């Protein structure tokens, strides 16, 4: 009970501050909708508006981008982490691409991939891949070669070594990479939906900004935050289950 109260307290505090600001008269009330106004708008959009579709579209794009990004980041990160000499050459290149803000790539993505669904997913893929690959290779590079030696002295073949030692040691890093990639993908969502998106939470926010519907913008932002948080929780629960052997769980 106390635990629930402690978890709820900072959230309630933030909502209370927001509410106080909006009713204090310090700012124009038209610029800061109150929590009940936003709650009401949320309900309207959810029941009579496009919100369920927007959420589904955005979540689908994030899943697609992250799935593709991690599918590539795991093998690439593994190779870079395991073979240090390759890593030395590739590392600057990775950091170059990672530093580019996805939003800056949008014009090029439109030229090369058009304005359809693939273009949006490519932006998310880009962001997830570079976030994921670095987490992956940093993690793999820290795996102690001691376990490889031990397995060898017990008679492990190359394939046994891979399946029974390297894979189990890789799983925690895969989960961390997934977690980081999901966070980055949600943060990049609005940028990806700058590309002629009709639906999606990013599109909802941009359309609302054109009509100065601040309450809708609040709803969009809060939805992105809540969904990203829920996914992070889910992955952490997964990690607790599958890598319970770790000293410290993310």
């Amino acid at each position, binding site marked *: 009970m106390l635990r629930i109260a402690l978890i709820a307290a900072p959230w309630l505090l933030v909502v209370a501050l927001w509410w106080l600001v909006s009713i204090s008269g310090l700012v124009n009330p038209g610029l800061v909708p109150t929590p009940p106004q936003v709650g009401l708008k949320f309900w309207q959009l959810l029941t009579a508006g496009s919100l369920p579709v927007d959420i589904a579209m955005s979540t689908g794009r994030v899943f697609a981008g992250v799935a593709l990004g991690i599918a590539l980041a795991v093998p690439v990160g593994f190779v870079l982490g395991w073979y240090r000499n390759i890593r030395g050459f590739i590392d600057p290149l990775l950091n170059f691409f990672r530093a580019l803000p996805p939003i800056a790539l949008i014009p090029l993505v439109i030229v090369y991939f058009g304005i359809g669904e693939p273009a949006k997913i490519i932006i998310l893929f880009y962001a997830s891949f570079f976030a994921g690959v670095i987490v992956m290779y940093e993690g793999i590079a820290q795996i102690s070669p*001691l376990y490889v*030696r*031990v397995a060898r002295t017990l*008679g492990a073949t190359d394939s046994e070594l891979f399946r029974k030692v390297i894979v189990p040691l890789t799983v925690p890093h895969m989960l961390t990479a997934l977690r980081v990639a999901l966070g980055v993908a949600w943060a990049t969502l609005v940028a990806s939906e700058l590309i002629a998106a009709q639906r999606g939470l990013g599109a909802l926010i941009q359309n609302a900004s054109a009509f100065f519907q601040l309450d809708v913008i609040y709803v969009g932002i809060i939805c992105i935050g809540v969904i990203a948080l829920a996914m992070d929780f889910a992955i952490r629960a997964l990690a607790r289950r599958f890598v319970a052997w770790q000293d410290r769980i993310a």
Partner: protein
Amino acid sequence: MTTAAPVRIAFDHVSVEFASARGTMRVVDDVTYDIRDGEFVSIIGPSGCGKTTMMNIVAGFVQPTSGSVLLDGAPIKGPGPDRGVMFQEYGVFPWLSVRDNIAFGLKLAANRTPEAARDEIVNRYMRLMGLADFADAWPKTLSGGMRQRLALARAYAVRPQFLLMDEPFGALDAQTRSAMQDLLLEVLAAEGKTVMLITHSVEEAIYLSSRIIVMSARPTRVREIIDVPFPYPRQEALHETREFNELRSHVRELVMLEYAAQARQTTPAAPRAADDIGRIRRGKPPGGAS
């Protein structure tokens, strides 16, 4: 120890050199000795002198630069389950329970064991090592001494003919260390093996071994080979005897001289096990000039 027992491990004019940033560094210099069947041989000498490198040759991780090391008369081709290795850092697999750690080797193709026999072996070693109550625990919940016993059980489970131990008790407190030494002697009495132990501790070397090889400072040479005259089984009380103390003074004096010689050297510490591991990780053949 009867000299009639056959030679199992033969070092013949073995030298090992590592390539370092400042040129070639000789770590082991023209070392010759034999380890016979059923012997317990301790290798003692200053830290960083090259003891671990000698064990890594027998384990199959390092090739001598010159000379040869023969295992039952044949050259060593890589690591194998006939030689159980106890690493200084234990290397207990953190993602496996106690039971699965011990069973790991038995599930490999090299020592495939039917499930019933496997369970029996695992249960026996868990009982012997006092781990039965922790069968399903993760290694992270175990104490240092328990991890050490787990590593020993895992090495024993595949029934190696040789046990190669690199300062296995170094990280343990005095009481645990002494208990582990007695446990080791007990287990060895039940299933004879040929043992090579790398240690810093003169007491440990005398208490456990049938023979002690004192190594010099780097590049390491054989300084003296000492037969330990005490019969097995040995008991704690052996430590208190006059003979034990005389032998201890003698060995300690030798070792201290070599420590002093090592300290006078201005060269940095030899590339030890960490360097070999680096080579393996980088996909290069372990040891030798690269």
